Structures are given as structure tokens and as C-alpha cells.
């Protein structure tokens, strides 16, 4: 009886949590299907209106910026390139860093790892001026590389891979050695396939992280053609309902990628080997 009650109680708490998360999104979605007049006079709407097609088509045909160089498609493309680039580079760099830290005879490997790890305490916003100056010296301002490179080394992903590698028994390495696997082959033939689920999890993590960037893209690009979706949310001109529609659309790519890869994502985060 108590168990029945407590399980119901925890379900109730979870349901409340879901409502708290969902309601704002729903309000924006419902509001995006009304006319701007209704929103401006009556506030956010809870029920669906009849302007869904009209409002969303307008966003899809939007041309923004001073020179009208940027479209919604281009913004999605930019965000996609940036997020994918960040995800790819940070997964690859973390995989390799963790490999070196765990398997190579590096002096002070643990110390080095913790130095890498404390960079978590130094967010991009804190180092934004030196980072900008580096990018400008390298002539990467106003380019995709400028958007991607400064945020594509992840201490968190390095931590995950390092902890995972540490659980792999030494015999596997020894056995591979006797089977003629060199340093590179062991990485490619063993560590990469074994950490497949974790790679996918980290990829999603970093994809969403890259997709959500706002301050850095604004600083490092001045050309309209590099606007990302998140920048567009702020920069976009037009009526309130079109902005709402764009907010809803901007959520689709990260949600989509999580839905498609969620099986790996959960396995990777809660790896119990």
C-alpha cells in the first residue's frame, strides 16, 4: 500500500515537472497560431488559433539583416554546420586526449587531467576577449572555423572517455599487443568501437551545446550571412507571432537529434560496464 502510494506520489512529482517544462513551450506554440493583434491585446493564448500556416510560411520566406542576405534556411544551415563541427571536433579531441592520458606513460597524467578538467570552471564568456583576439590574429573572424574552433575542446567529454577507458581491463591491451596491434590500431580497432555509445552520447551533448551558442557567434561574426538560428531569434524583425513561430522551429533540430539517437544517449550516459 505504502509502495503503491509512494510510486503514485513520485509519478505526481514527475508529472508536475513535465507540466512546468511543457506549458511555456505550449503557450508559445499556441500563441504562434494567432494573429499579432490577439497576442498584443489579450496576451499569450492557451488554445490553438487558425493562423498556423500563414505565420509559419512567413517565417520560412523571411529574409533578414540589412542587406537581406540571410534567410531562415541559411540560419539553420549555419547552426547545423556550427553544431556538427563543434560536436565532431570535441568528440575527436576528447577521445584522443583521454587515450593519451590513460594509456600513454605521460608524467603527471592525473595532474594534467585535472588541469584540463578545471577549464570547466572557466566558461567561454570569461575568456571571450583573449579568444577573440586569437581568432582575429588567425584571421578566422567571420568564418565557420571561427565559430567552431574556440568551443570544440570539451573537458566534460574528456572526463567521460577517460573514466570509461579506465574500466577497460589491461588484458585487452596486452592481448591486442600480442596480436600485433600498434598504438594506432588499438585506438581504432578497440577503443573507438568499444566507446561507440559514449561517442554518440557526447556527440549529442556537444551538438546541442554548439547549437545553443549565442554570445560567441554574435561576437565573432559581423557578416549577416553567418547568423545562426539562436542569433536570428534576437535579430529577426517582424511581428511577435512570427518570432514565436521561429522559436518553435528552432527547437526542432536538437529535439530531433535526441529522439533519433536517444537509445545510444541513455546507454552512453549510464554506461554500467
Amino acid at each position, binding site marked *: 500500500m505504502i509502495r503503491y502510494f509512494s510510486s503514485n506520489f513520485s509519478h505526481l512529482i514527475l508529472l508536475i515537472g513535465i507540466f512546468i517544462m511543457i506549458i511555456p513551450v505550449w503557450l508559445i506554440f499556441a500563441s504562434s497560431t494567432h494573429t499579432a493583434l490577439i497576442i498584443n491585446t489579450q496576451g499569450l493564448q492557451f488554445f490553438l488559433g487558425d493562423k498556423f500556416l500563414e505565420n509559419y510560411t512567413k517565417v520560412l520566406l523571411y529574409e533578414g539583416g540589412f542587406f537581406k542576405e540571410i534567410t531562415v534556411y541559411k540560419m539553420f544551415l549555419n547552426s547545423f554546420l556550427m553544431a556538427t563541427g563543434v560536436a565532431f571536433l570535441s568528440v575527436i579531441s576528447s577521445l584522443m586526449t583521454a587515450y593519451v592520458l590513460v594509456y600513454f606513460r605521460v608524467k603527471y597524467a592525473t595532474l594534467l587531467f585535472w588541469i584540463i578538467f578545471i577549464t570547466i570552471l572557466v566558461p567561454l564568456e570569461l575568456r571571450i576577449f583573449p579568444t577573440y583576439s586569437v581568432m582575429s590574429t588567425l584571421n578566422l573572424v567571420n568564418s565557420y572555423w571561427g565559430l567552431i574552433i574556440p568551443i570544440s575542446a570539451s573537458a566534460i567529454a574528456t572526463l567521460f572517455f577517460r573514466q570509461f577507458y579506465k574500466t577497460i*581491463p589491461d*588484458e*585487452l591491451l*596486452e*592481448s*591486442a*599487443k*600480442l*596480436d*600485433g*596491434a*600498434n598504438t594506432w*590500431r588499438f585506438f581504432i*580497432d*578497440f577503443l573507438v*568501437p*568499444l566507446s*561507440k555509445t559514449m561517442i554518440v552520447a557526447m556527440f549529442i551533448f556537444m551538438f546541442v551545446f554548439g547549437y545553443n551558442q549565442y554570445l560567441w557567434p554574435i561576437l565573432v561574426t559581423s557578416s549577416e550571412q553567418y547568423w545562426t538560428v539562436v542569433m536570428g531569434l534576437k535579430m529577426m524583425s517582424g511581428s511577435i507571432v512570427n518570432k514565436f513561430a521561429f522559436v518553435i522551429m528552432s527547437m526542432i533540430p536538437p529535439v530531433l537529434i535526441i529522439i533519433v539517437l536517444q537509445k545510444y544517449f541513455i546507454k552512453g550516459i549510464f554506461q554500467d560496464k
Partner: protein
Amino acid sequence: MSFLELNKVTKIYPNGTKAVHETSMNVENGEFMVFVGPSGCGKSTLLRMIAGLEDITEGYINLDGILINKVDPSDRDVAMVFQNYALYPHMNVYNNLAYGLKNRGISKEDIEKKVNEAAKLLQISEYLQRKPSMLSGGQRQRVAMGRAIVRNPKIFLFDEPLSNLDAKLRIQMRLEIKKLQQKVGVTSIFVTHDQVEAMTLADRLAVINNGLIEQLGTPIEIYNNPKSMFVAGFIGSPQMNFLEGELINKTLTSEGFEINNVTSDFNGPVILGIRPEHMSQTDKGLINLSVDLVEQLGSDNLIYGEIKNKKDFCFRCPGSQIIKKGSKLSLNINDNNYYVFDKSNGNRVN
């Protein structure tokens, strides 16, 4: 020149622990050598030095006429079976077997042929497409051996490969390893702490203690003629009985009985060793045993009892003999099958 030569091989770990002391030995081509000893005696370290997984601090190792001290493990042409098998979890059985061959640049057709041959030999042909996680302990064991066999190496190294199996399977696999080795004829070194495994598998046996080879010989030689108290106690099951005593002028006095005409010139405190199976019941025997406990194994009975000051003295008799707890037995030592050791250093003196 022998096939495998160890010359004063020494291992000192960076923290100063000396795991292996100046060990020298030879293994002949096709021989099945077993290293046996208690855990932490350095037997695995010795094996790992032959495999190239541990650096050799001093001394040298020759394999097939080539000095291999500095040769990379992958170039030594040795194959090893690990205690937990170390199968590649993300590869199916076929690829587990084929991986070492692929790295050696062997053509696809040859790999397929070799893998299929090995699989047939080990009766794992049906499992080739399965992942190791879908196999039972015994099957994994076979795959691990298959991975060694398929490369046709100069030498097989086994690092306690049977200790993860249950008792019944262990005996079965022990038999199969022995048969397989005889069939394939590859020189093998097998590390174990189980003396029964050691006795049954070995052509020759090296009993290792504290990083030193205490005795090297065929199992029967070692059983019949242990050179030290350690070897005598380690080889043989149940363990040899040890009694304290004194040897003066060829007369040994111990726990209320005397043995005359001991073939030894040693004088002083000694330890007398008698194997449980080397005694028999008579009317007026040397040793008077009051029985505390009877273990009936079916074929044999193990009788534990007390003689004067010595407790848990073990005597083995045929299972058909009925002996009751609390009864008194009179025992004689058969054919002077007893061992006398110097009490101070454990060396055999008779």
C-alpha cells in the same frame, strides 16, 4: 641449445620489489612446462616477461635462438591465453580469431582457412558469428585458445586460464588442453597455483616460491623426491604431514615414536614429512592415531586425528575400510616412504 632459454632472469619493480630472482631454466621444443606456486610467487611475472608484457630487469631470454629481451611482444611470435580470456567484446568469434592474422598481413582466403581449421579443432565452428558475451565460460575458453592456435606461434603461454571455470569444466578443459597440446605439438608454458592441474598437465614442472625456482623436474620426480619442505608441502593432495623431531646418530625421535637407520648424517632438529597415502594400518605400528574426523570421498577415506602433540594428522585409506570417529589406529610407514628436512632451512636431508 634449447628452444627457450632463461638465463639469470630477474625482475625488480620500480618500487624495489624483487618479483623474480636470477631464474635460469630451459624449455625444449614441444615440451609442456608448468610453473606452479602460491599466489604472489612471481610465476605470472616470469610468464609475462617471456611474453614481453613486462620488461626484464636483468638477465636474458632466448627464444628459438633469438635474444628477445628487447623484441616487441607482437614480434616475438608468442600467443597467450589470459585468466579472464581477454576476448575482444565488440568482435564476433571469427574476428577474435582473425584479428592477429589480419595484423600480420595474411590474405583473406588464408585467414578464413586457418580460422575454420582452428574452429573445427576446438569445436567452436557453430559459434563463429557470435559475440563473446553470448558464449558460456567453457566456450570462451576455447575461443581464447583458438586465438592462440590460429597464429601458429612458437610458444603458447597460459596464465591461469582455468581458474574462472567451475570444478567440473576445469577438469574437462584441463584434459582438452593437454590433448590439444599433444596434437598441435607447440611448446607451452602454463602457470597455475593448483597443484593437481600442474601434476596432470606438465611434462616438466617448476615449483616457484618467492621468485625462485625451488625445484624443476617431471611431476613424478617432484612428488617422489621433493628437495625442500616447501615443495613437499605444495605438491600432493592432501598435503604431506609434517612432524617436529630430532635426528641424532641416524635415529629420529618424533611425537612418541622412533625411526632407526635413517639414511642421513644430519644431526639436530628436523621436520619429518609423511604423505597420508604412504601409511597403512597394522596391529603394532609406529604411529598411534586417535581419530577425530573422517572424510569419505567414496574411493578413499581421509582420516584426521591426533598423535601425541600433533593435531590434524592425515591418513588416507581405501574407501571400503570403515573407520569410526573416536577409534584408535595403529599405522606403519610403507617402504620407508618418509622425508626428513632440516628444521632451520627446510632442505631435505635424507
